[in-house]
Every structure is written in C-alpha cells, then in structure tokens.
C-alpha cells in the first residue's frame, strides 16, 4: 500500500528525469556534440577576428555567451523529436499527472546534459580567449543560471515545432528573440566584473528570469504539446 501511495505521489518529474538521463548516458556521443561545437567555434574567433589578447579580451564574454546560446539552440531540436517519433510523447500526454511536471523533468535532464557541461567548460574558453581572471566566476555563475533559462524557453519552441518535418530552423527563428534578454544580462554580468563593478545586480536579473521561466515555460510547453503532438 505504501509503495502504491508513493507512486501516486510521484509527479512524473523524477521518472522522466531518470529516463532522459539514462538515454543520454547511452548516447553519450550525441550529448558531447554541443560541447565540442562550443569549443570548436571558439577556435574560429581568433582566426576570424584577431589573435591579439588585448582585442580578444573585449569580446571574450560576449562571444562565449553567443556560442553557448547557439550550442543550446542546436541541441534544442532533439528535445522531443525522438519521443514524438517512437510514441512515448503521446504516452506522456495521456498520463494522469499534470503535464508540466514530467516536462520539467525532461528539461532538467536537457540542462544537465547541455547547459551544465557548457558552463563547466566555459572557464577554459575564457582562458583561451584571454578573459581577465576576475571574469571567470561571473561567467560560470551567469552561464549556470542563463543556460537553464535557455533550456526552458527553448522547450516551448521545441514543443511548438515537434511535429514539423523541418522544425529545426523554425525553432531557432521562434526562440531567438526570447534569448536576447538572457544574453544581454549574461554578458553584462561578466563585463561588470571585468570593469570592476558590482556584478551581482545583472546576475540577480538573470535569477529573476530563471524564476519566471521555470514557473511559466513548462506550462506553455505543455499547452503547445497538446496542440502540436496531436497533429
């Protein structure tokens, strides 16, 4: 009886989180590609702009943020695609639990496999792009908070385009405008620190964005999936 009650209490969050992490572990090659993309594109910047440290220093924070955004965007397309194709998305839609909670589990798994690795790799890229060392901690903090927002907002876009054959490009088009405030305050956090200002205010705004998107995005994604997955 106790186990039955516990199963009733389970919102589906933990189950979907565990499932997606397990799937990611079994396809670790796929999971690594956003991080590899992140590192490879950073090689293009000295080649395309300039190898001079003084020049790179100015653009480092913004560039790392742009690359993190693009890497997240590339990985966003796959969030629901395989579930939609093998039918497990429909199973999720007909479960008695509230839909936003299993979705939040999926999004958390997505962040743990893309946003978190990107955040952890970012100081290395900061070093390569000669970001001043005071910028490392703000960079990691802002990416940790900001990439969660990117995953959450991206999930709404992924839900809106899941049943479209060429959804990937459209997804970027839909989601990019919503990423712009995140990148503004993400880079502001780092550049404030580099300029010797208090970098907590922009980080706090990122935190507010995180709070708002964690509350609203799963609801919007659930509403979107109910529309799109039935088509």
């Amino acid at each position: 009886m106790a186990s039955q009650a516990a199963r009733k209490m389970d919102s589906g969050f933990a189950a979907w989180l565990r499932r997606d992490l397990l799937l990611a572990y079994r396809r670790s090659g796929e999971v690594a590609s956003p991080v590899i993309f992140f590192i490879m594109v950073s090689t293009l910047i000295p080649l395309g702009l300039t190898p001079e440290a003084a020049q790179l220093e100015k653009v480092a924070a913004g560039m790392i943020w742009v690359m993190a955004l693009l890497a997240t965007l590339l990985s966003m397309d796959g969030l629901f695609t395989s579930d939609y194709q093998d039918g497990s998305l429909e199973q999720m839609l007909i479960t008695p639990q509230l839909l936003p909670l299993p979705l939040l589990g999926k999004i958390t798994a997505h962040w743990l496999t893309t946003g978190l690795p990107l955040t952890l790799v970012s100081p290395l890229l900061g070093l390569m792009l000669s970001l001043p060392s005071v910028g490392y901690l703000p960079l990691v903090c802002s990416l940790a908070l900001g990439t969660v927002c990117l995953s959450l907002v991206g999930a709404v876009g992924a839900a809106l385009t899941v049943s479209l054959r060429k959804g990937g490009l459209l997804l970027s088009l839909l989601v990019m405008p919503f990423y712009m405030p995140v990148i503004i305050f993400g880079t502001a956090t780092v550049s404030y620190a580099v300029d010797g200002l208090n970098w907590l205010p922009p980080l706090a705004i990122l935190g507010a964005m995180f709070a708002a998107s964690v509350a609203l995005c799963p609801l919007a994604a659930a509403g979107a999936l109910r529309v799109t997955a039935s088509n």
Partner: protein
Amino acid sequence: MSWLSDKFSSTLSGGPSKESPSWQWFYRLGSPRWFYQRSGQWLPWLSLVALLVLATGLVWGLAFAPEDAKQGNSFRIIYIHVPAAFLAQSGYFIMAIAGAIGLIWKMKMSYMVMKAAAPIGAVLTFIALFTGAVWGKPTWGAYWVWDARITSMLILLFLYAGVMALQYAYHSVDAASRASAILALVGTVNIPIINKSVDWWYTLHQPATIKLTSAPSMHMDMFMPLLVMIVGFYLFYAVALILHTRNEILRRERKTSWVRELVTAKAGG
C-alpha cells in the same frame, strides 16, 4: 433556418437562445458570416473617417506645424515614425489578445483576426524602423545605431516573423492557429521588456516624449498633429485588420454555402 444552425454550430455548442441577450453580440461576433456582413457595412464609413483623419494630420503636421528649433524640417518624419511605432506595439497586443480569446473560448473568428493582425503589425514595425533610420541619419549621423529602443523594435519584428512563420508551417488550420496563439502569448512577455528597455539600456535614443500621466514635453503646436496622426493610424489599422480578416474569412469558409452564393452572385452580377 438552416443558415442559422450552420452559423452558430461553428462557434460555440450552445446557441444564442440559451444565453442572456446582453451576451449575444459576443456570440454573434464569433460567426464569420455575421462578421463578414456587418464589417461590409462598416467598412466604407470607417475607411472614409480614417482617410479624413490621416489627411488632416498629414497636412497639419507636414505643412502647418512649426519647425523644430534644432532639427529643422527633418523632425517632421515623427508624424509617421511615432504612430507606426505605437501601432506596432499595440498591434502585438491585439494579436495576442485575439489569440488568447481563441484559446479560451475556442472562437475560430478570433484566430482569423490574429492571423490577419500579424502581417499588418510586421509591416508597421518595419515602417517604424525604416523611418527611424531615415530620421537617424541627419540627427545622429548614422542610419543604424544599436540603441535599446531600436533593438527592441527589431526584436518585435522578429517576434512577428516567428508568429507568421509558425502560422504558415502547419497544414492544419487548427494547429496553426493554436500554436501561433501560444507563441503570441509567450511573446507578450517580451513587450514589458521593450517598454522597460528605455530605462535599462538608455544610450543614444531620447527617452519617451509622450507620457500619459504628465504633460507632453513637446510643444502643443507640434503635439496636436501627432495626436491626430496616432488616431488616424489606429483607424487605418482597424480598416486594414478588417480587410485582412474578411479575406481570411473567405479563404477559410470557401466551402460553406454562403461564400459560394456570394461568389456566384459577384460572378453573375
């Protein structure tokens, strides 16, 4: 009686007879046929008023309003720029509200209004950006400046583009309407950021000149024609929205008998 039943079957399951009379207009508004017929009656008058107000505002603003002390005659583009920017932003709200009504009350009529509002809003946003660029050259010395308000208008243009792209991506009319309604609602989150952006990233652009709570910082002789132009743009927007919606009604209802009758009557006459 048959037209009555197909008229209301498309909107809500309950007919108008069950509801109190004060709500009937709301249900009637949900009927594409009723809207098409009624808007056909309003349209000539509304277009006439819009034309008159726009002509008055333009002549007043371009010919009679005093020259600006610093900018000379180049400031007169404000009479296009500001109303377009106004409508670009309110147009997004109109689109999102129409989408929300569609999602909540399942009115297909409001989805048609939403679809019609997207391209109009996008064009107005483009006009605001374009006139801003033309104005920027003599004032700031550059066509494009990465200023907070310009950037948020550009983001608004992207938001419109997203709604339109999603609308055309789906073959099913129902999925297209509901998906883009959700996107439009999510996009409204961006509008407060646009309005706050003036305070956040104040750079080159002057702060908002028109405030509802305090007296305008413009001279009254310059401000009055601007007000007329804003009203004129709202009227023009209403005309354009009704025309686009009527088009959409005919396209979506092309298989119903009343549209066929309308088309054959037009072809015969």
